[in-house]
């Protein structure tokens, strides 16, 4: 145990003396925590529409004002040249074009139906769908109004109406940041834990100081603990600043559930993820190798964690990958405890699975790590 104390003193001295590294490890993630949730917003706003009006009648004007008044669209072009409007699409100034043919009003009344051309820039499929849907909605309403103008519907409306009362729980303001901040924080903590820790260990390998350690009576387990514990502490520190500093102050997020539960899961998670970093380090001889493998896994962990896209929507084989990704569970737990106040019984499974990960990674790593070969 005394050896462990000496090891920890040495590690901490080395980390704190490194003037470049320490501020970067803590500051970089936190800065990203501030920026990311602001940027990561899937809500579709500001769809730019170019309207080509060949009719210039009261109907076309009425339709156009309904569109601009809806709040979904911003008018990028209004005129009578389709070529000009198309140029807007090419230059990404417009997302869709509405072309109203000449004699629209006259022909609608005379012949009973008319066509409107909508051309949508479908490069971004989601935006295209939504923009098209909104526009179709507005046109539909406009159409209904036109019909009402001309046709008297029977006095008693026979059409049944189902009223759908909808409510949103846990996040009534629908603030996307609430959803993203815990998840992003979870991922940043993961990066510091796995990535930085494995780099640190491999650095000793590369420089050769590990040989010196191997020759001393320092036990395997002490050395490993001496490497893991400092990063565990740094990660918890960063998590705390992130959640209570940035999360609360900038985003107004106050965890609904038990803080103790959150921290106990965090601790277990860190053991698992540091074990993963340790494991990576046993397979690398140089820092560049460690960095490459870590980058590879980090990227996959990031994409398959449910942080940006939902796991349920993935095909089965992809869902299995997500199931084997430890980050998935931590992000889920973060969101559940912070936003919904879930209790221990709700996340029992998550605890068990994370324990499994911790044992698996650390066990494998310790098996690999041999002072004597």
């Amino acid at each position, binding site marked *: 145990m005394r*050896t462990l104390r*000496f090891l920890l003193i*040495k590690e901490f001295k080395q980390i704190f003396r490194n003037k470049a590294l320490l501020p970067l490890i803590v500051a970089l993630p936190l800065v990203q925590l501030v920026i990311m949730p602001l940027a990561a917003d899937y809500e579709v706003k500001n769809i730019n529409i170019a309207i080509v009006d060949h009719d210039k009648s009261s109907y076309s004007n009425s339709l156009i004002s309904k569109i601009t008044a809806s709040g979904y669209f911003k008018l990028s072009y209004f005129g009578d040249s389709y070529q000009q409007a198309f140029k807007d699409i090419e230059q990404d100034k417009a997302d869709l074009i509405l072309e109203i043919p000449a004699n629209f009003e006259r022909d609608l009344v005379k012949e009973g139906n008319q066509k409107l051309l909508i051309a949508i820039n479908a490069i971004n499929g989601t935006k295209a769908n939504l923009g098209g849907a909104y526009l179709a909605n507005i046109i539909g309403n406009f159409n209904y109004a036109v019909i009402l103008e001309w046709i008297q519907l029977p006095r008693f409306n026979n059409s049944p109406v189902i009223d759908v009362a909808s409510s949103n729980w846990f996040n009534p303001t629908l603030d996307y940041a609430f959803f993203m901040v815990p998840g992003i924080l979870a991922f940043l903590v993961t990066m510091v834990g796995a990535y930085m820790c494995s780099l640190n260990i491999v650095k000793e390998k590369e420089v050769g100081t590990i*040989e010196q350690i191997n*020759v001393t009576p320092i036990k395997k387990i002490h050395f490993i603990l001496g490497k893991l514990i400092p990063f565990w502490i740094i990660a918890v520190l960063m998590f705390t600043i992130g959640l209570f500093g940035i999360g609360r102050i900038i985003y107004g997020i106050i965890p609904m559930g038990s803080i103790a539960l959150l921290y106990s899961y965090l601790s277990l998670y860190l053991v698992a993820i540091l074990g993963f970093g340790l494991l990576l380090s046993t397979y690398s001889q140089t820092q560049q190798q460690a960095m490459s493998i870590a980058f590879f896994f980090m990227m996959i962990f990031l994409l398959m964690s449910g942080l940006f896209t939902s796991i349920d929507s993935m095909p089965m084989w992809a869902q299995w990958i997500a199931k084997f990704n430890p980050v998935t569970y931590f992000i889920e737990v973060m969101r559940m405890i912070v936003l919904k106040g879930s209790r221990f019984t709700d996340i029992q499974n998550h605890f068990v699975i994370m324990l499994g990960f911790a044992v698996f990674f650390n066990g494998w790593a310790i098996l690999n790590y041999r002072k004597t*070969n």
Partner: protein
Amino acid sequence: MNPEVVISTNKLTKRFGNFVATDSITFDVYKGEIFGFLGANGAGKTTAMRMLCGLSIPSSGEATIAGFDIYKQTEEIKKNIGYMSQKFSLYEDLTVLDNIRFFGGIYGLSNKEIKAKSEELIENLGLQEVAKKFVGSLPLGWKQKLAFSVAVFHDPKIVFLDEPTGGVDPVTRRQFWDLIYEAADRGITIFVTTHYMDEAEYCNRVSMMVDGEIKALDSPKKLKTQFNASSMDDVFYQLARGAQRSD
């Protein structure tokens, strides 16, 4: 008087696949002697030394280091030896004092002992001015002397030195060997590998490894007589001439 044997090997061998790095070496090292382990690069010195330090498990043969078995008691071996390699010995990003305290603590010295001995060490080496400076900022010669002192800080039975004087000027080398003599006088056995043949003259006995085998083992004087050579260089040349392996 039978001097105490601190290292004893019997047909110690290390194989890597088909390649025999160390071939059946058998020798004894006595307490307090300065034992030079010589040989060309690639002859198998480093492999042999790694086994003796407990860093590598032999393929076959027996050995005891400081009385402990090389297969079953590697942890005990480590507690009783010191080690200094040319590649690294100390943490460059920690101060002189930090390094001394760290290694002292690792080897189980009490805080009181560490304090007393570190003061002694710093005074002996004249490092008072730089005690709180990073080791990385010291000139190479000082680093080597400090590294050696740290390696014997806990008064181990044996200290293994792997090419300890590489890249150092002749004056510093002399000073370094003074430190080695001091340690040997204290009863610490010195096991040193080198390919500076003049340093071979400083040792009590030397062994020569060629192609993984020990081709000669005796005091420098007797070896020179045996091979009718005027210097250790010459002895070495005669032995190594027929060597198959080189760097």
